[in-house]
Structures are given as C-alpha cells and as structure tokens.
C-alpha cells in the first residue's frame, strides 16, 4: 500500500512537471521554430497520406493496489492499446475499424462497421461489428470513460467490454413539433459472444434485438439534457442460473430494459475551464427460461456519477454503484472517486479509489492509477 502511494506521488509529480519541463526546454516561442510557407491561393489542404485512412492509437496503462477477493487484477498492466482506422469509403459510406491489443489477452476486433451516410428520410444505418446503443455509457470505448473500471451494473449485465456484436442497425431522426432531437434506433445482431446475461449464438436464429429512443434538449445557453430508454432481448445465458444442473435443457430469453439521463453544464463563453456532467443509468433484467423449471432472475441495478472540471486541466468525480444479486435478495454496491489531470487533450493521468461491498461482510477497497494517451489525427471531442 505504501509503495503504491509512493508510485502515485512519483507519477503525479512527473505528470505535473512534464508540461512545464517541455515548456522550459522548448525553443523560445517568441520566434516560430516550425518552418512555414504561404500556400498559393486556392491550394487544397496538403495531406501526406492522401486516400489512406486516418490512423490513431489510444493507449491505456493502469496500476492497481488494495484488495478485492473477487478480482485479483495485476498490479500493473497495459489495459489496452486501441488502434483506430477510419476513412470515407465512397460518397455513400464511411468505415470505422478499432483493433484492441491487451497485455494479457489476445488481440481483438473491437469494432468494424460501415456507416451508410446518404439514406433518405432521416435514416442512417450501420452494418458490421459495433458497440450497441444501449444507454449512453455503453457507446464509449472503455479507455475513454472517466473510470479505471466499468460501473458495477454495466459490468454485471454487459461484461467488462460492454455490449457489442455483429449485425445491423438502423436509426431514424424522428421529426416532431417540438424541434427536439429524437433518435430511434433498432438493432439486430448475432447474440453476443461474451455476455453475462445473453448466450453466445449456437444457432442461426440466436439473435439479439435492441431498441433505443433518445432525446436531447438545450435547456439554456449553458445547460442541456440527454434522456433515453433502451430495450434488448436475446437467448438467456444459462450461466446465470448457477443452481441449474442441466444447462443444456435450459432455454429462454433474457430481456434488459434501461433508462439514462445526462445533464451537462458548461460556460460556453470560456469553454475550456469549467464544466459539469451528471450521468445516471438504470437497468432491469428479466431472465426467464422456458417451462418455468427454475426461478426467474429479475435483478435491478444502475450507476450515477458526477464529473466536475474545476480548472483547465483538472477534473474530479464521484460515482455510486448498485446491483441486485441474480440468485438471492441481496445486492452489491460501491463508490468510486477520482482526480484527473489532463496535461493536454492528448493525455490523462487519473488517481482513483473504489470501495465495493459484495455483501455486508465482504468488501473490497482498491486504488488505481490510470494513464491514457492518444496519438494520431485530432479526434472529435467526446460529448
């Protein structure tokens, strides 16, 4: 514990010193050190990799300390190096591919999908393997969330990597008299390979069906709100029923409903200094096997967190977790707090502490140092 604290202090000191050191080492900014030239009138933007896809890498290193009897993650590891390849395919489609490399696991194809840009009537479609539009949080790649872990309820229901799979999605911008952004999404996928509640597809008609309606409104110049409801159903993962003897005989469907609400504040007149985000997601699972031989599983769960940017390069946040047990009337809960320093838009250092209560006499107290970096073309700011 003490050595971890020393490591944290050393890393933070390095993080805080790094930009200043770079600035001090830098050639005098009073004179431009990059050769510059004027482009002729009407010159197109110069691009060295014409027609190649944009290539980017997000690296995520993590150190952990403390004790969790249910999850003995290594003290230090490369959680993920995610390679993104993104390009417009033709005037009608664009392609996005994300490959994920882990320290202790095999490389994986995280996402690879085609987006159809020119469908009429406010429709858009995606085909391939992609993260599902179930709630808002599930759409964010793991390394890009503010957390060193995944919220308890999201991890329990959708796994450490979130809900994703191969299939097709159609979304529709729903016209309405209120001038509101309203987007309705329908997805059909092969039942996901690694999901705690949904079974991996064994037959061609083992499919996941998903629907989501999300709306957005600007409440004022500084405040806005995003609210959504989601529903997904697929064959049930029989591992949920750990009291079952004959798993092969068990078939049925798991259904998950979700609701999410995100409230944001930002002073757009000085946007880079202060912001506030409050996001809450709640889930309800109904896993019932055919024949009623075994008791259905109907746990509820969710999480809520607040992220406050209190200075240009500093964020602090706290998250609360809650998840009912599958097999009994008990529940698990947790609290995570973090302090994050972002030297630039392209790197991040975050110290985090999490206390999880699996049962009244079974608690875990862990501490993390999360470091991420982003190289490649300037990506979009997350919203």
């Amino acid at each position: 514990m003490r050595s971890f604290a020393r490591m944290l202090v050393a890393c933070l000191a390095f993080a805080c010193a790094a930009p200043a050191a770079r600035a001090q080492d830098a050639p005098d900014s009073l004179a431009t050190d990059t050769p510059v030239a004027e482009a002729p009138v009407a010159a197109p933007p110069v691009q060295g990799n014409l027609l190649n896809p944009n290539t980017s890498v997000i690296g995520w290193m993590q150190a952990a300390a403390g004790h969790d009897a249910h999850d003995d993650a290594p003290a230090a590891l490369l959680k993920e190096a995610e390679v993104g390849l993104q390009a417009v395919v033709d005037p009608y489609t664009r392609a996005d591919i994300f490959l994920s490399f882990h320290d202790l696991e095999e490389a994986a194809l995280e996402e690879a999908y085609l987006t159809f840009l020119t469908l009429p009537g406010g429709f858009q479609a995606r085909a391939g393997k992609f993260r599902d539009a179930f709630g808002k949080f599930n759409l964010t790649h793991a390394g890009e969330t503010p957390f060193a872990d995944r919220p308890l309820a999201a991890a329990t229901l959708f796994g450490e990597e979130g809900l994703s799979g191969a299939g097709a999605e159609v979304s529709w911008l729903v016209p309405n008299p209120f001038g509101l952004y309203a987007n309705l999404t329908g997805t059909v996928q092969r039942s996901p390979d690694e999901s705690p509640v949904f079974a991996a597809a064994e037959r061609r008609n083992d499919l996941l069906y998903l629907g989501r309606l999300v709306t957005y409104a600007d409440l004022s110049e500084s405040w806005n709100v995003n609210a959504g409801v989601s529903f997904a159903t697929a064959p049930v993962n029989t591992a949920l029923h750990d009291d079952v003897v004959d798993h092969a005989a068990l078939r049925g469907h798991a259904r998950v409903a979700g609701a999410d609400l995100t409230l944001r504040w930002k002073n757009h007149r000085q946007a880079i200094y202060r912001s506030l985000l409050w996001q809450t997601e709640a889930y309800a699972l109904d896993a019932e096997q055919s024949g009623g031989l075994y008791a259905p599983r109907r746990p509820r769960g969710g999480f809520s967190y607040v992220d406050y940017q209190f200075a240009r390069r500093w964020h602090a946040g706290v998250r609360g977790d809650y998840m009912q047990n599958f097999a009994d009337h008990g529940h698990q809960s947790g609290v995570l707090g973090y302090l994050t320093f972002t030297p630039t838009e392209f790197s991040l250092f975050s110290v985090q502490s999490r206390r999880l209560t699996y049962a009244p006499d079974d608690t875990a107290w862990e501490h993390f140092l999360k470091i991420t970096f982003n190289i490649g073309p300037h990506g979009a700011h997350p919203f």
Partner: protein
Amino acid sequence: MHCIATLRRGLVAVAALLALAPAAAHATLKVVTTTEDLAAIAREVGGARVQVDALAHGYEDPHHVDAKPSFVLKLAKADVFIQIGRELEVGWVPPLLTNARNAKIQPGGAGFLDVSSGVKILEVPTGAVDRSQGDVHPFGNPHFWLSSDNAVLMAQGIAAKFTQVDPAGAAAYKAGAAAFAQHVATAKVRWTAAAKRIGLTGANLVTYHNSWPYFAREFGFTVVGYVEPRPGIPPSVAHTADLITQMKAKHVRALLVEPYFDQKLPKKIAASAGVPLVVLPPSVDASAGMKTYVDLVDKQLALLTQAMGGK
C-alpha cells in the same frame, strides 16, 4: 416483466406521436455555417435568397465547441454547409456531419463548402509536424477570416457554391459578393488610416494564442510572442517570466487576448510589462452590435484605439 412491456409500448407510442409532426416550412436555400463570421458573409452574399444559421456563437472558441445533437437537426435540413476548414473545427464537425443523414452536405457533396480551399493561407508547415509543437494545425493557420482580402475571397467562394446549388440565383449571388467586396474596400480605407493613426502599424504586439497572423499582416504589426508557449498549452511560470522580459525589451505596445480565454494571467503579464491588455473579439457577434464583417473590424480597431490611445 410488466415494466419492460410498458416501456416497450411507450417507445412505440412516443415514436408514433413524434412521426405525426408536420415538416418545417422550406426556405429558398437553407445554409448552416460553423461560425458567425461565415454566417455574416453568407447573409451578405445570399441576401433574401438564403436563410443562414451558425452553429457556434461568436463568443465561443471555435476550436472547442460541443458537438450537440441539436446541431444535427440543423444540418439534417441544410442545403449548404460551410466550414472554415484547415482543422479549425476538427474537434466537433466530423461526428455532426456523419450523423446529419444529409447526403448533400457530406464532404464532396454539392452542398459542402470548405472556404479554406479558396483563400491565402499562412503558416503552412513545411517541416515535420507533431504534437511536441502543441495542438498545431498541420494544414496552416485557420484564422484566415481576419484578413479582409481573404474575407472577399471567402465571399466569392460562397457565391460560387450558392450558384452551384441554386443556379437561378447566380446574378443575385454575384451581386451580393461584389457588394460585400465594395463594403470591405470602402471600410479598409478608414481601417488602414486608423491603424496608422494609433501606431498599430509598425508596432510590436503579443497575443495569447496564435490567432492573429492575418490581422497582423493586414495592419502591419508584428506579433513577437505568445502567452501560450505552444498552441493549446497553458503557460508555465518560466515562460511567463521570459515573455515579460521580452515584452519590455522589444517595446511591445499591447497584449491581445480573445474573450474566451481566462484573463487573469494576461492581466498580470500586461501589468508587469506596462502595456494595455486588449480583449479583442475575433468573430462576428462576439458581443452586441457586431452583426457584419465590417462591424467586427470596426469594433476591433475601436478597441485598439481605446487601448493604444492614438500614440
């Protein structure tokens, strides 16, 4: 189970209700621009034939605008989309265009215009570019609208795009661009005289961010330093001290800062160096009464005149 079924029925009902809404009335040419500067020029070029909406407010930092879903609604209905380009809006425009479901305004589409392809660009790097240089723009400095010559070229590019999308209005768009050029030419005479009168021409200035090379070239002053040690990098104590020393040595006349940057440190630097701090709006509609491009430059020179005192 009951709550899930209710939720499912609710989803279908809300979607059906929303779908019954009437479509909005259609204007001659619906134009969406990223900035108020583009919107102001587009309005002068298009006149009554266009309805123009800017995504970012004039008081916002155009590098850091949130890609709000409400922008998608505007883009979904647009006939023409105009951006500054050179990666000024790279942090927020690409996901908006992807989700706009509007084939016309996708890059390469008939309704897409990147005005940077028709103007004179400064500071295009000719050597290696990486992030050790800060959040650099690898295709040149994108603050080119702060040159009146470029503003006229932008108006011509916008007129050409409007003509391509709405050929029936060709004469009106040509006349609109010509009138804009005339307004700028007339104003430029008094702008140039004002810059000379207040001693802006030939002066050394310091700015917060590297937003003003075009403005400097237009009025003949030299930017001898920046509060940011590199683009997008907050200043260190050592850089700040060095900057103050250099400002005194080079007889800097003023420190310019955009309204969207925190002014605490620039105020201290300006006070230490003994120069006025000028909070200079870089965009149309950054404050009340600046509705046109000419209004913007008039306001900029009025603020500089006030600060530099006509010395």
